[in-house]
């Protein structure tokens, strides 16, 4: 195989599943010990990431990263009938621990909406992730500019 073809396949694979995806799915299988590495690989490969109906509400300029309000909301009108949101997560790529938040939603929630405050270590593009029960993944990113980090507390 010529070298450029190999590179193209590699780039294709990267485009299909972003770098943080394995870490995000991995947190699930690490806790439910039944899922083996084969199952994990399969889920990483099978993931189709689209913008979908996920909205991420976070200020674009933040004074301090110690407490940044964020709202994750999956628009129910974008869901096909019988499909529900099973997990909501936040990826902050430049935080020391990039998987910032991962929440499993029960059937009791009337809307797939979570409001909370997170810490940010640097200016970065914050990504929200929603996993649907049919295997689809919605993602949405917003670039956040930070003037003070949560990691270095004046020391």
């Amino acid at each position, binding site marked *: 195989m010529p070298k450029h073809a190999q590179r193209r396949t590699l780039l294709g694979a990267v485009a299909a599943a972003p770098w943080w995806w394995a870490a995000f799915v991995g947190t699930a299988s690490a806790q439910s010990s039944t899922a083996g590495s084969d199952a994990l690989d399969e889920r990483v490969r099978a993931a189709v990431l689209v913008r979908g109906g996920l909205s991420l509400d976070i200020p674009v300029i933040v004074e301090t990263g110690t407490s940044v309000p964020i709202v994750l909301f999956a628009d129910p009108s974008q869901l096909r009938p019988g499909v529900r949101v099973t997990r909501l997560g936040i990826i902050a790529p430049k935080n020391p*621990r990039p998987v910032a938040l991962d929440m*499993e939603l029960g*059937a009791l929630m009337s809307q797939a909406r*979570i409001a909370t405050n997170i810490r940010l270590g640097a200016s970065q593009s914050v990504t929200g992730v929603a996993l649907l029960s049919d295997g689809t993944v919605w993602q949405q990113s917003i670039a956040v500019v930070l003037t003070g980090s949560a990691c270095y507390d004046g020391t």
Partner: protein
Amino acid sequence: MADAVIAAIPPGRHARLIVPRLLQRGEDFTARLLIQHPMETGFRRDDTGKVLPANVIENVVLLFNDELVFRGRVLNALSANPSLSVQLTAQKSGTLSAHWRDQMGNVGSISTEVRVAGA
């Protein structure tokens, strides 16, 4: 004296679970969980340069009448004294309860009554 008393209380003991006082059946409402916890990341140092040991809430679960509302798998980047708000529908009266555990093994829980008029 007061400082010593406060320091002796393990983190994650004080919490609030806020719901509206009385709901109509079918009404959408917000349940807000607040936990008093430092959520120490392990990346900060104290005044003497000593690393403050990491201690974040690892697990949190919110239940309504023992049915799952949400389960937090990873809460790495929640701010100190985290707050989590979710939307629920008032179908029947019952008990909303939250339970959590941090990396140092401190556990906490709180529950509150959800009152739905005539149900």
